[in-house]
């Protein structure tokens, strides 16, 4: 567990597996949980309506039939009240239809799937959490706990995780649409070490709330040191397309670091040979960098990493041997 993660003021918790690896969960917020709850309530109402309609068919069988129908409705409504959530959570591995639609899941606080007893218990305690109205007690309890647990969660050691947000925050593809350096741009031979690349990645972590300007400021010392090592000089404005130059001025340093990341994280050899990219004068895609941060999917990382290693594989075959 890195101390960085520990200090984070967000809704992540780190869980250690029995194998000794740490991994993170994103805790679901009250809003998504309320949405899931609303959907579940609607489904419950739907089921009850359906049962009531079915019960109408018992009416022709006289009073006994009507009584049976009415009793059935009452029993179903009792089961829905007290067991709807728990039965779904027990058999659908911590999800109800509403939770599934919102990408939520109930797990135990150690990250393991919920057991039937906890599922029943945490939902029994809804009766306490929903008091005096609209889950006020539950909400207060959520505000006071790190894992946003309502009373039922606290007593039965469960938490609700947001699997969808996890996926979004996993956005890879930081450097999608960023151009690697061309060899001609960096005359000095210098390989940026892994650690430095990791620092750059940290700077661009999507869940970090830093303004563009502040990130640029933070980036400057590192960026300037690297420029010196690499012998990189910012290009002059392109007379054919001066806008690009001025647009990128505000994010000069961050953009440089991203290009460093692109170039060295994916190919330790460093700069690309000019042979691979023919158009040396292609403008840098700034807008793409800005829009990427919310849209990139989880797969992007793997595919880009793998594509790159595939490229270097191909390159390896041509070479006799390479230093590790």
């Amino acid at each position: 567990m890195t101390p960085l993660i520990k200090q984070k003021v967000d809704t992540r918790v780190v869980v250690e597996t029995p194998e000794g690896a740490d991994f993170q969960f994103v805790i679901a917020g009250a809003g998504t949980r309320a949405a899931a709850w609303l959907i579940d309530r609607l489904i419950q109402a739907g089921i009850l309506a359906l049962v009531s309609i079915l019960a109408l068919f018992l009416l022709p069988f006289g009073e006994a039939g009507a009584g049976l129908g009415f009793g059935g409705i009452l029993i179903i409504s009792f089961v829905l009240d007290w067991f709807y959530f728990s039965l779904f959570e027990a058999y659908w591995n911590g999800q109800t239809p509403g939770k599934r639609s919102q990408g939520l899941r109930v797990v135990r606080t150690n990250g393991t799937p919920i057991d039937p007893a906890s599922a029943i218990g945490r939902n029994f305690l809804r009766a306490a959490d929903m008091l005096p109205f609209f889950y006020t007690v539950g909400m207060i309890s959520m505000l006071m706990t790190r894992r946003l647990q309502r009373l039922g969660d606290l007593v039965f050691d469960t938490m609700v995780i947001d699997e969808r947000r996890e996926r979004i925050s996993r956005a890879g593809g930081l450097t999608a649409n960023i151009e690697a350096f061309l060899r001609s741009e960096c005359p000095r031979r210098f390989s940026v070490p892994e650690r430095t690349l990791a620092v750059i990645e940290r700077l661009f972590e999507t869940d970090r709330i830093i303004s563009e300007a502040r990130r640029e400021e933070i980036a400057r010392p590192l960026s300037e040191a690297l420029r010196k090592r690499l012998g990189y000089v910012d290009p002059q404005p392109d007379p054919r397309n001066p806008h690009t130059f001025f647009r990128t001025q505000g994010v000069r340093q961050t953009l440089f670091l991203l290009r460093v990341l692109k170039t060295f994280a994916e190919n330790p050899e460093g700069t690309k040979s000019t042979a691979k990219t023919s158009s040396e004068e292609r403008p840098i895609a700034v807008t793409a960098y800005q829009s990427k941060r919310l849209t990139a999917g989880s797969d992007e990382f793997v595919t880009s990493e793998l594509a790159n290693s595939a490229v270097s594989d191909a390159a390896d075959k041509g070479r006799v041997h390479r230093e590790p």
Partner: protein
Amino acid sequence: MNRERFIRQRRSDWQQFETLVSRLRATRQRAWASRDVSDLSRLYRSICYDLSLVQSREWGSRLEQYLNDLVAQGHNALYRSAPRSLSVIWDFFAYDFPRTFRRRIGAFSLALALFLIPFLVSTLVGWQRPDVAEMIAGKESLEAASQNFGEDLYTDMDAKYAGQRSAMAGFYVKNNTGIAFQAYALGAFIGLGTCFILLSNGISIGMVTGYILAAGPPTTENFFSFVISHGSFELTAIVISGGGGFVLAHGILFPGQRTRMDSLRHHGLESLKLALGAGAMLAIAAMLEGYFSPLPIPASIKYVVGSCLWLLVISYLSFAGRGGSANEG
């Protein structure tokens, strides 16, 4: 090993793992092939190792997140609660529930006192001073209750309401079990909610009982022969479930040597057992109250059956699950 080499070496495993997990997710656990399972656990362990390696060498947060995601998926696929069979239900009622009840007899006694004392007091009030009872509980409802158990109950009412039995049974399930579960859940407010529900139910039931006692023989006999049978399960269960609420409160208030969280979890499970057992008892009570109690048979038969049921409940709670087996409790 540098980062690139590492990725290149391991990526086939990662991909294999990803496809395996997504395939297994789509199939039922019982249909998993043994080869897949052993692959899954082998790959999962190696990916856990990869994740630790990447974390310790700080090989970039993207790689870390990617592996983190893989581990999370594998963790969800591998670690599930053990599959349960129906024997769990039998074990619960044959051993676990009565044993838990006896272990927690203190909480039950507290709940019993909080129910029984106001019940007896208000019975006395209703009996001796019906006017006071009318003031407290409302004249109309008491009179309606008294009339319900009037002379003609079993000749008149049963014929009239024969069709309503199922409806009433359903109503008892919803209403009474709901109250019992509430009495349990509100124990989370350090037992105050449980107190409130036990007290208010004790008082209102007592008022009705006292009022009917004051009404005289035919009504009284109809009433007692009606309630004796299902009362055994119903009243006991409501008090047990209140006891569950107090177990919960105990876990919050007096953690003892445990941390408060630990204590909550421990007592939470114990209290849940009491509430669930009580729920089952109330379902039985509802069936009795719906189908047996209103039968037009002589009161003496009902007294005999009712007494037997009381004996059954008491001996079940006192003796069931003594002696060994079923995981020794």
